[in-house]
């Protein structure tokens, strides 16, 4: 029964990683850049939702929508100001810029909202226990976990359908394959990448709300560590692969919790990263990543 409980904890932690990883992997898959500021957009989303609900007493759903809206705008602004001028620059320059944006967001948040922690309102804790109890209360699955996993699956399916079937989705895939050729075919690469960022940042807002619902302490650095873990999860699952991000996130969470429970709370991170290294040695493109054959 203990093992099952740990498994459930692992899945709930993993589902939070997974939802963040979806945003990472989507931007990477299309724009071919690692948006290290993703974790901090999550933090901004969580703050917006926190202020909407706690300070201005808006209904939770409206708070979430507001967070999605503002983060989408923020994502577009960041892309226009920071990444667009570097479209032709080497990928290293873009990566460093992304880290700069990440620090900028953290420090701006600190100036705006101070570094004092805030506790996120628990509007997903329905009822007395905040979860479903099984086997006479011995097992407990919280509603937040269920909502997070459901959100992951919905987003995953929606993203797959979007990139596979819509015109914009096709443009995205074309940009991902070859930006130059896509432009020659009449695709507006800049707009396509802006839309990618808009969607990625909107997802970040949802991830922020779910992250802070599960672990309700909110500070300006809230997004950075889960962001890095989620990036690891995305690489683990095969970066650029949408189902891979989901799988990678869940596995990472489960491994982390089980390592803590059965090996050592001190060494759990070392074990998680050791597993990552082993997976990448055996399968360099990650669990579900497609091997890329570069043609000369």
């Amino acid at each position, binding site marked *: 029964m*203990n093992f099952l*409980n*740990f498994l459930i*904890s692992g899945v*709930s*932690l993993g589902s939070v990683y997974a939802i963040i990883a979806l945003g990472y992997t989507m931007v990477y898959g299309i724009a071919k850049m*690692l948006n290290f500021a993703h974790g901090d957009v999550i933090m901004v989303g969580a703050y917006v939702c*926190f202020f909407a609900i*706690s300070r201005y007493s808006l209904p939770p759903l409206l708070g979430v929508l507001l967070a999605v809206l503002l983060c989408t705008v923020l994502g577009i602004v960041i892309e226009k100001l920071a990444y667009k001028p570097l479209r032709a620059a080497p*990928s*290293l320059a873009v*990566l460093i810029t992304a*880290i*700069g944006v990440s*620090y*900028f967001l*953290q*420090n701006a948040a*600190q100036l705006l909202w*101070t*570094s*004092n*922690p*805030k*506790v*996120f*309102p628990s509007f997903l804790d329905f009822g007395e*226990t905040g979860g479903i109890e099984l086997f006479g*209360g011995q097992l*407990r699955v*919280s509603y937040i976990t269920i909502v997070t996993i459901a959100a992951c699956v919905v987003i995953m399916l929606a993203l797959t359908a979007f990139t596979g079937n819509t015109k914009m989705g096709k443009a995205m895939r074309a940009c991902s394959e070859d930006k130059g050729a896509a432009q020659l075919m009449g695709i507006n690469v800049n707009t396509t990448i802006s839309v990618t960022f808009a969607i990625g940042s909107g997802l970040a807002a949802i991830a922020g709300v779910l992250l802070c619902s599960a*672990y*309700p*302490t909110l*500070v*300006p*650095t809230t997004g*950075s*560590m*889960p962001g*890095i*873990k989620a*990036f690891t999860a995305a*690489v683990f699952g095969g*970066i650029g692969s949408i189902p891979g991000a989901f799988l990678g996130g869940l596995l990472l969470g489960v491994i*982390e*919790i089980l390592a*803590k*429970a059965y090996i050592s*709370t*001190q060494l*759990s*991170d070392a074990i998680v990263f050791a597993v990552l290294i082993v997976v*990448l040695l055996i399968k*360099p*493109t990650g669990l579900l990543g497609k*091997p*890329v*054959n*570069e043609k000369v």
Partner: protein
Amino acid sequence: MKKFSKTLALALALVLCVGLLAACGETGTQGGQQTQTPETPDDEGAAAVVIKIGGTGPLTGGAAIYGNAVKNAAEIAVEEINALDGIHFELKFEDDQHDAEKAVNAYNTLKDWGMQISLGSVTSKPCEATSAETYADRIFALTPSASSTAVIELDATADPITYKDNQFQMCFTDPNQGSASAQYIFDKGLASKVAVIWKNDDVYSQGIYNTFVTRAAELGLEVVSDTTFNDDNAADFSVQIADAQSKGAELVFLPMYYEPAALIFNQAKAAGYAPAWFGVDGMDGILTLEGFDTALAEGVYLLTPFNADSTDARTVAFVEKYQARYGDIPNQFAADAYDCVYAYYQACTAAGVTADMSAEAVCEAMIEQFTTMSYDGLTGDGMTWDVTGAVTKSPKGMVIQNGAYVGLD
């Protein structure tokens, strides 16, 4: 393939770098932010003496909450003192971003400015670095909150251990808190089986943990569960809670700051585990955490020198002023900083320090004062210091009842 693995290698390298940065307390990018309390116009004539006080602390980055609390409270104290006759202070507080190297740079800026006495650094690691500098430069330093013993020790490997003669602390040292907590739990008969959850990348938590388990073993308290976390996995505590619960711990000792503690209370409630909780001074602040359901902290014991809800007239005045100016309830870091400035006021007045005295002369006068004087402040009455620089004051046992701290003794 080649291009892909290159990107991946690069990305992984960056992750490690970012992880490293995060481990160093999430340093920000803003450089040396300065603040200066304006000198009060000197209209009492030539008699006014202005002493330059400097200090460093994290004003930006992940630990900014502590640095800003100290800076804000020190500013209030300086302002109050400057409104009185007698000795006046000029305060300059530099950002160190909770980074030892930046703290030394900030310290050098302060030295160039002409600092005569120092508030050291706010957090332990940077203060270890600046205390070596103040020791070498013969500048007296009284840190509000850097509680590690390494701050006051000169040579910890010597037998007996030698101490820096001009580095003093306003806060308890970490070992004191650990053993005092174990003693308190034992004396009050709060539990016989205890669990400890501590933060293994934090000297503060580790220092308290080490002496707690040593003292607990001496007293016959059984530590049945001993689990850790760190900055990178401070979100999910289900495993630690399950371990304490399954081993039948009646009390869980939490040597940590209140942010992770708030998560632990939340997750323990979800797991249906309701032991007695016991915190240390870092737990102070949990009730003022914005949006926190104080019912979760009901019955939490803590040993802390400062209580913002106290009805003591000085504390009430300080809390009101702080809240009016900065919008937050002051934590114990703020109270310690306020006390530091007033302790300096008392010592400087008694020693007859004048503005033209060199830092070295002030240092000698301060060493003499601090080792002989007794000081009453917000964080305790009748505080005294011994030659090592450690403070003697009695921690107050508190319990949280109906969302407020209630004194136990």
